[in-house]
């Protein structure tokens, strides 16, 4: 949005506007987000940086505190992240070692969330595993520094803000494409950024990752953030890696990121209410899910 002087007063209504500001002021993607936050919340650069650093600290701590023995209250999830980790250690992963660890991390964070452990909503609690799943392995392998990770988190926040403004980041209004899809787009952008890709490549990664998850419905079994949520974090993370690699390879999206986001909104609006977090349609309406729901009700 612009004021009458043509100045941009709200940077994050479009990815294109963020890129434009990068060009005009010759600053980086995360710098645009940092400056906008300083203006928006009237805080100093140091304050916004420290707050983002604390988000990373909490995310990293959460990813290290996984307990494989733990089950959720309902008993529906728990242990998958541990099993995947064991499997990766055996050394024969179809997707390769790195991707195997990304999958394990995504499962672990999703399960920690379901087991009432401390996590960072990114952008939601249900999708909290996607970002750490792709960032933590790179960080632990020494490929990226803490400073780069924090910058990347500013990139993800800018992307997420555009999605929240143009469409939605809530499963109840936009389906799972709005949660896991948004998380995946944020993660893809972060990956391109820390890998030294250009800001245009960041935008392409956002577009391609979100396109791949368009139409994904929100259908939690028994209304709980467990099935299919935990494993959807895996597709969010794996898809982000693939989209980032495509963008870094120079592959572009025919549909610009902002228009993909608009399409996501249109698809979300057209989604039947039974597929928007009501726990009625999709997987939640399957025979197995109804049986699970009945048993949980009896227990309660």
């Amino acid at each position, binding site marked *: 949005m612009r004021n009458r002087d043509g100045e941009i007063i709200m940077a994050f209504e479009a990815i294109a506007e963020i890129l434009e500001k990068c060009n005009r002021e010759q600053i980086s993607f995360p710098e645009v987000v940092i400056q906008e936050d300083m203006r928006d919340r009237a805080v100093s650069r140091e304050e916004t940086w420290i707050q983002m650093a604390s988000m990373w600290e909490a995310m990293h701590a959460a990813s290290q505190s996984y307990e494989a023995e733990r089950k959720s209250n309902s008993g529906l999830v728990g242990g998958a992240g541990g099993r995947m980790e064991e499997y990766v250690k055996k050394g024969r992963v179809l997707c390769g070692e790195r991707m195997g660890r990304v999958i394990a991390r995504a499962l672990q964070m999703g399960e920690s969330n379901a087991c009432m452990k*401390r996590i960072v*909503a*990114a*952008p939601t*609690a249900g999708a909290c595993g996607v970002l750490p799943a792709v960032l933590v392995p790179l960080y632990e392998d020494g490929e990226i520094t803490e400073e780069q990770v924090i910058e990347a988190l500013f990139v993800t926040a800018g992307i997420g803000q555009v999605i*929240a403004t143009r469409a939605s*980041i809530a499963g109840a209004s936009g389906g799972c494409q709005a949660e896991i899809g948004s998380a995946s787009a944020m993660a893809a952008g972060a990956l391109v950024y820390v890998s030294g890709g250009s800001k245009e490549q960041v935008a392409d990664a956002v577009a391609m990752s979100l396109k791949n998850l368009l139409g994904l419905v929100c259908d939690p079994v028994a*209304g*709980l953030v467990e099935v299919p949520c935990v494993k959807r974090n895996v597709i969010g993370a794996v898809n982000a890696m693939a989209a980032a690699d495509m963008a870094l390879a120079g592959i572009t999206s025919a549909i610009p990121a902002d228009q993909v986001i608009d399409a996501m909104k249109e698809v979300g609006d057209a989604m039947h209410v039974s597929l928007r977090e009501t726990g009625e349609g999709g997987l939640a309406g399957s025979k197995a899910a109804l049986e699970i729901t009945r048993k949980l009700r009896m227990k309660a």
Partner: protein
Amino acid sequence: MNIFDILGPVMVGPSSSHTAGAVRIGFITRRLLGESPVKALITLSGSFAATGAGHGTDVALVAGLLGMKPDDMRVPESLSLAKEEGLEISFDFANLKEAHPNTAVLRVTGESGRELEVQASSLGGGRIMVNKLDGIEVNFTGESPTLIVHNMDQPGHVAEVTSMLSHKSVNIATMQLYRDHRGGYAVMVIEMDQNVPREALDWLSRLEGIIKVTYLDKEK
């Protein structure tokens, strides 16, 4: 939405609306009561009633009543902590019509015997809204300093409050007026940009016709 609504909150899972938001509802109820609660009747409505148990909504509300924030790792153990701290809890379910789907009503008694009934809803992303205080409709989030004044429905009280605030250089962001019937009981809810000094609140609560003054300072 600021960038830390996108990345964050740091919270105990599994759901920002059913868990983190519920902790915040418990916590704001405690702050509104202004003292430690010793007794609480918690009524869950809508989706809070339907899927609350699986999301830990019940333990989350109790955790907030005990003064915990959404990222407190003790949230899952709140029921046993409540017992230790002498907070007596009971739960009930209701189908409140025309209420937001994620709504809870907390009827609490404090250690001094003070009573309060708060109806609040969880809007998503951990954000909440207080909808009713002691049965009177209100609307505030508790994110900025908030002054709630219960007074007799007589002329002059609004002017008393606003002139006090301007005298203390406190800027009013929003102001809402409610009453149960003409000449009865009225409530002012004022959200502000700055904190109100303690002595100004004391002065206000001593004025004739002012029944109760409740104040929430900026949440840290």
